[in-house]
């Protein structure tokens, strides 16, 4: 049984003449414990798949399931306990008036935990932030520290599936590596399944086992990361995307 399964997923925004089809007929499976990457240009619908799964993009058709359980229109507590998401921009994903402590304790409270104090300490420790960060506000944190808080928040309900929406693209190159290593460690520690969106093929190559290449809302090709490294692709678009990621090559 796959951890995540998408079959013929269509997602659109707007109605009538304004309708934009962001994802068209996406079909793929993510195995438990796997790290699956979605790559493609900006606007190719990578993040939209995640937003449809979590209910942030309300207009969708097709079939989605989590651990074999189909996802309906309304998602229950159980769903949010299983699937959590880390957002792209750590500067926008933390409430500006809430301290780290407030963010984490509310999350834990919403998921019905009662031993909130020790859990907060454990979470901060898990993401490499000491107890001194607990009562800080977001403006007292750096970008990398904020993203660690966002990861701690996503880990709070002890999910088995983590959606990563370009978790490092808003960060410094040096901090990117720290966050990616942290994510790799956490995956091993908590047996997590990752679905990761990125346009940085180096990041995807480092993290993922399989990738899906997207263009204009459609999945062009699904291939393993070794095939990607060896440039063994069947689709010309994938090849041109991989080529572009190698930088400018003088012919």
């Amino acid at each position: 049984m796959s951890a995540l399964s998408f079959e013929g997923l269509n997602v659109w925004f707007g109605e009538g003449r304004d309708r934009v089809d962001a994802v068209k007929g996406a079909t793929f499976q993510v195995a438990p414990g796997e790290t699956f990457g979605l790559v493609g240009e900006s606007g190719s619908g990578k993040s939209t798949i995640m937003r449809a799964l979590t209910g942030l993009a309300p207009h969708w058709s097709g079939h989605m399931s989590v651990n074999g359980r189909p996802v309906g229109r309304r998602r229950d507590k159980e769903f949010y306990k299983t699937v959590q998401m880390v957002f792209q921009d750590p500067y926008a994903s933390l409430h500006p008036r809430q301290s780290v402590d407030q963010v984490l304790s509310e999350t834990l409270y919403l998921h019905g935990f009662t031993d909130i104090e020790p859990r907060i300490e454990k979470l901060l420790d898990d993401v490499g932030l000491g107890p001194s960060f607990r009562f800080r506000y977001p403006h007292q944190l750096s970008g990398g520290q904020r993203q660690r808080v966002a990861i701690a928040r996503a880990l709070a309900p002890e999910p088995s599936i983590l959606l990563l929406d370009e978790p490092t693209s808003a960060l410094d190159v040096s901090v990117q590596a720290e966050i990616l290593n942290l994510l790799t460690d956490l995956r091993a520690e908590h047996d997590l399944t990752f679905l990761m969106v990125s346009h940085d093929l180096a990041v995807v190559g480092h993290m993922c086992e399989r990738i899906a290449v997207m263009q204009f809302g459609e999945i062009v090709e699904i291939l393993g990361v070794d095939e990607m490294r060896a440039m063994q692709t069947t689709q010309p678009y994938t090849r041109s995307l991989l080529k572009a990621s190698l930088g400018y090559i003088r012919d």
Partner: protein
Amino acid sequence: MSETQTGWRDWLLTDTPQSRNQARLAALFQGWLSFRSNPMAMFGLGILILLLLMAAFAPLLAPHDPFTQDLANRLKPLGTPDHPLGTDSLGRDILSRLIYGSRITLYIVTLVALIAPVAGLMVGTIAGYTGGWIDLGLMRITDIFLAFPRLVLALAFVAALGAGIENAVLAISLTAWPPYARIARAETLTIRNSDYISAVRLQGAGPIRIITKHIWPLCISSLIVRVTLDMAGIILAAAGLGFLGLGAQPPSPEWGAMISEGRRFILDHWWVATMPGLAIFTVSLAFNLLGDGLRDVLDPKDEK
């Protein structure tokens, strides 16, 4: 002494607070520091503190009873011994009436400040967050209230409810909430699709929790600023209703009603109307200055 003082300062300005309360106090203290650096705002705050003290200790401060008439001493000019600001047409001491009138002014201001922004905040955030038909309905109601000139609408309410200070407060509140609703809705629209609201939704939080715990704190600061800036207008509206005889009723020493009484003698005995006018002017100015200062401190969009 100075050592403990710097100790407190360091404790408040630390980057690594140790407890919830310390973090909260530190945020407050930093706001206070930036507020303190604005001399005009401090001036406004000073005047308002004086007003508060004046209202609290009115019986001690007032040299005379504000209601005692003394027809032998009517319309005495400024600087009369025993009556520094003169007396009005019934021989009542204007200074004492001004001091007691500050209580009425504060009463009006506090009640309106409690009713109008809270109502506006609820309407605005609910409309902004839910969207759709609810938004449309609530905003059209807001438009209807906005379409009337404020004082005229207040006049109509007072006429319907009967004259008196409570009804004046109610009428002013009923006419004052729509702008707050508009502001709150606009703020909500910018916040509702942000990542941190999405993140809370992903924790399974319901709309009521999101509105009250996550959207309100971000709207409140701009509302507080708007309220302090509107205070001047509220005092003037209350004074205007008093002046028209629809607010506080004689012999209540409400400042607007005092101006109204003085109007009859304005050419020969100008101070009777001018002194309460100056009081209204000073308090309105103080609220405006305070509002300007608070905007600098509270506006979340102003990233320093």
